[in-house]
């Protein structure tokens, strides 16, 4: 079975800064993967790359069968992304926001109404909350509303950026249940957090992937011995950046044992 996410030496930039400096990663369908790493390691960037928001500078990225170097847009219908921001409109109520999101992703009016109500019920957004403008919600309620959008869309790939942040204990329990249900329904889940160490891994996760410095590293950096995702020992980088603009993918960064970056004319 083809992996849901397949990245090879993916590089993504913000201006000149490499958010991702050559990520190689495979996520199989139905897996739950926990991305872990310090702040600034590239976890959010990796999630944003996978939903097509971040352009790929070099390397390859295939998500749910879509080649992101060729077309970043097509994959978005099948992906549910929960970011740090909530993507909600302040002036609209929770229900209006949900219905808009459902209709935008292709449901008709009836279906959108139904899905919104189911999602809101699942996330305990009840009582007066559905009719409350988003601007008046607390941070936790806003997070739940944003999560409700993802739940309502029923995506094949869930990309959750620090989903537990800002949720109280009850909400976290509900979130874990939702993740299990998603996997039971055949979806793939990638979630991130900044806890380090194997012992902090999410109980539902099939495996933990550690990120640091925009790359996948196998063990947390503190242990010293570092290997990349394929198990090869890693010494120093020699990256060849793309010289042609996207969408042509240029040569991937090369790893050589030299300690200085190779100068490429």
């Amino acid at each position, binding site marked *: 079975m083809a992996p849901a996410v397949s990245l090879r030496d993916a590089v993504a930039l913000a201006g000149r800064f490499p958010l991702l400096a050559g990520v190689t990663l495979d996520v199989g369908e139905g897996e739950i993967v926990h991305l872990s790493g310090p702040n600034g390691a590239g976890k959010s960037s990796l999630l944003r790359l996978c939903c097509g928001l971040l352009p790929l500078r070099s390397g390859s990225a295939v998500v749910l069968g879509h080649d992101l170097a060729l077309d970043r847009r097509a994959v978005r219908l099948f992906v549910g992304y929960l970011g740090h921001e909530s993507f909600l409109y302040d002036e609209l109520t929770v229900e209006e926001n949900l219905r808009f999101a459902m209709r935008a992703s292709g449901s008709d009016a009836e279906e959108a109404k139904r899905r919104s109500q189911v999602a809101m019920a699942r996330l305990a957004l009840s009582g007066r909350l559905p009719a409350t403008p988003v601007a008046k919600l607390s941070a936790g309620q806003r997070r739940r509303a944003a999560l409700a959008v993802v739940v309502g869309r029923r995506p094949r790939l869930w990309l959750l950026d620090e989903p537990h942040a800002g949720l109280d204990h009850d909400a976290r329990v509900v979130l874990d249940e939702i993740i299990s249900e998603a996997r039971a329904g055949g979806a793939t889940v990638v979630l991130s957090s900044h806890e380090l160490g194997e012992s902090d891994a999410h109980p539902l996760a099939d495996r933990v992937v550690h990120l*640091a410095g925009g790359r996948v590293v196998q063990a947390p950096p503190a242990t010293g011995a570092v290997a990349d995702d394929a198990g090869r020992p890693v010494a120093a*980088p020699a*990256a060849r950046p793309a010289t042609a603009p996207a969408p042509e993918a240029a040569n991937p*960064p090369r790893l050589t044992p030299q300690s200085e970056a190779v100068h490429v004319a």
Partner: protein
Amino acid sequence: MRGDRAVRALGVAALAGMIATVWLGLFVTPNAVGYADGTVRLLYIHPPLAWVMFIAYGMATLSSLLYLWPRTRHARFDRLAGASAEVGVVFTGLTLVSGSIWGRTTWGVYWAWDPLLTTTALLFVLYLGYLAMRNVPGDPDTVARRSAIAGLVAFLDVPIVFFAVSWWSLHQGPTIDLATRHSYVHGSMAWTLLLGFVSFTLTYVWLMVHRYRLAALRARESDEGLESALADRWAEALQ
């Protein structure tokens, strides 16, 4: 570098051409009938400036199109578009100044809202905006794509502006009427005018070469910066 000698020769030719144009225009060609004393001499400067302005914007638009077309997408076209727009803006400014001076001598006012000059003024502001937008920081590919689209959107406006302003001043105001002018241009005047066109065009090409090189060097610096940035990012992982 290989092309350096050619570029230098080009620069010398352009400079020589301009000096010759000025000398011929000021001292050798006769005064024309129907013009205030000496004002016809601007004929050798103003139309060539306007001509270069149009080539420059045309080049910028063509380059933008080539950049957006998938088969010819390459950073060089984005650099060409930016360089051409910059040079174009400079020549537009000069066109405005020379046109204004000419207007002062012919009509007595520095600005008489004639269609050509007004269109030029609008183009000036239009492309200043385009340049401002190019300078907004961002990922180079993003800026390039955004600029190319904006360049085309702006260029779409040019014929509309021209027709609008022409109709607008149909009923009033003086115009620089090029048709009647041609009857006065003959002999040494015609040659000088031709020399003016040629030397200004050469100057445009020379300026473009240098501006383009500057842009290419900047891009290379940015690419090399990327390599060291990738290396630094790596080092972060190894700590």
